[in-house]
């Protein structure tokens, strides 16, 4: 078809300009895709959390602890089936870049409460027995090549000093969304040390985790737990694990909002770039469009030529963007290390790519088309020669 041939030929008339525009679009789409994937990864911790678990923490702030003595009182609350507790350890492996979550927990009750961490019984036994032992997620162990029996040293931040741990067990996630990047060890190991050097900091718990009978009891049980400690020295705030995860996220909400905004700004910028390309192109060809109008072509056909060209550029950009997003995500995930439990590209993203590319193509063509159609033929012809 001559008409389509004309569109394709026009598209590549200024090869360099077209290629640069396509590249811009591809980069913008991939940037958008990666930012979206970051946001999704951030929230995946929430998706993985259970609604039959509650978290109790100090009502003032997460950074203030609760006394260990609360454990038995919490256990006595109706509807609570299990209680565990732990501290955020905040240890650093090698340097800041190698981030992974590390917790000191009461191991036996913790594993009962988190059945999604699947551990071989013999390994579990070894872990529970060794006070210096630790349990690692499969991905974490794979990442650093740790084998059972290896000693791993974390540099303490909240608890100073170098801490040696021995890998005794590796867990697999029961669900794809289960975080396999955790580093879990004995609360007692830290507590006994504290008893020796900082007795005032001993027997303190960062948070309690409770299992409850049914998800619909959550609000009621949480209220009962908090009522127990009302007017005590350390009042508590109990919420579902999901809400707890979300409050973590809320701290970073501003950052997420910025990322969100940036991802759309990127699209707006490429819209401007594409519009500029089309404006330049059409300005150069005003004479040619005048000829076509002279031959009897109306606004519809002139518009189809310009929209066709704009959409061709965007379709190529979209295709390349889709093709390159997976490799880009892999490189990105590798570069940022293990901040995110899972960094998977959501294929639904590509629906957005297509929609955004289409929108860019249409928007970029509107003004140039309007100009080309509106310019009087006689004036367009005068611009030739």
């Amino acid at each position, binding site marked *: 078809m001559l008409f389509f041939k004309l569109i394709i030929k026009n598209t590549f008339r200024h090869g360099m300009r077209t290629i640069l525009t396509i590249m811009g679009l591809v980069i913008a789409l991939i940037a958008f895709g990666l930012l979206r994937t970051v946001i999704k990864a951030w929230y995946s911790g929430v998706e993985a959390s259970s609604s039959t678990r509650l978290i109790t923490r100090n009502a003032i702030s997460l950074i203030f602890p609760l006394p260990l003595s609360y454990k038995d009182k919490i256990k006595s609350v109706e509807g609570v089936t299990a209680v565990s507790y732990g501290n955020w350890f905040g240890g650093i492996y090698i340097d800041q870049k190698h981030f992974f979550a590390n917790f000191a927990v009461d191991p036996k009750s913790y594993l009962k409460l988190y059945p999604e961490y699947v551990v071989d019984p013999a390994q579990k036994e070894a872990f529970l027995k060794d006070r210096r032992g630790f349990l690692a997620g499969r991905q974490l162990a794979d990442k650093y090549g740790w084998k059972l029996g290896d000693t791993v040293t974390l540099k303490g931040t909240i608890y100073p000093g170098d801490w040696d741990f021995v890998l005794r067990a590796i867990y697999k996630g029961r669900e794809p969304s289960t975080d396999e990047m955790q580093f879990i060890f004995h609360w007692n190991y830290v507590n006994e040390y504290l008893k020796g050097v900082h007795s005032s900091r001993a027997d303190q718990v960062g948070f309690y985790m409770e299992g409850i009978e049914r998800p619909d009891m959550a609000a009621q049980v949480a209220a009962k737990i908090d009522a127990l400690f009302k007017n005590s020295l350390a009042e508590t705030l109990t919420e579902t694990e999901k809400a707890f995860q979300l409050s973590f996220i809320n701290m970073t909400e501003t950052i997420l909002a910025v990322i969100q905004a940036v991802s759309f700004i990127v699209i707006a910028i490429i819209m401007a770039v594409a519009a500029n390309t089309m404006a330049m192109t059409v300005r150069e060809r005003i004479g*040619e469009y005048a000829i076509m109008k*002279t031959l009897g072509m109306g606004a519809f056909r002139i518009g189809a030529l310009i929209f066709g060209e704009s959409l061709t550029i965007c379709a190529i950009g979209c295709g390349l963007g889709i093709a390159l997003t997976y490799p880009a995500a892999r490189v990105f995930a590798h570069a940022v290390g293990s901040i995110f439990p899972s960094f998977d590209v959501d294929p639904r993203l590509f629906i957005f790519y297509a929609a955004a590319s289409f929108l860019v193509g249409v928007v970029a063509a509107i003004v140039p088309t309007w100009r080309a159609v509106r310019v009087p*033929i006689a004036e367009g012809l005068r611009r*030739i*020669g």
Partner: protein
Amino acid sequence: MSRQKPPIAEISHVYKSYRRGDQIVPVLEDITFSIEEGEFLALMGPSGSGKSTLLNLIAGIDRADSGTIMIGGLDITTLSETELASWRALNVGFIFQFYNLIPVLTAFENVELPLLLTGLSRKERADHVLMTLSLVNLLDRMDHYPSQLSGGQQQRVAIARAVVTDPTILVADEPTGDLDRVSAQEVLGLMERLNQELQKTVIMVTHDPRAASKARLVRNLEKGILT
């Protein structure tokens, strides 16, 4: 005794001015004349006298300020933009000084372009294009792009494009203005043949007396007034 045919074009009391800044520059003033069917008219006059403007009005690519332009019995000043576009596609063939071919299309495709607006099939279009290219003697160059053709050859492609839809009127704005003498002769000869053999009405703007000598009627435009 045969009754005289009505003129193909009747231009009456046409005025046209352009706006330059906040100044209004009159270009054509009270132009009235008619053109017989099958005429070969040369419009002459100094540069800036309004020849192109008048030609554009007759061809329906510009609008008069006032006056009527009857072509083949139809007052084209009353048509809408869209109607005018369809009217041009059917009735007028254009030849320009700078050939104005589409550079990314071959000679064949350039000639085919106006046929896209007709209901012809691909095969019919190809037949028309080949016939017309043979008329301008360029069959052997049909796959060449404009940049691969000489000026004279490009102008012959442009002539083929102008006549492929079989319009009644051919308008040519300085068709030899950019050509050497030999090519100019070829192009003029071709236009003469189109006029004589195919009975096209030809209206040609030129300031080349040699070109004008091919015409059967020469009119002069000076300062917007036809003499």
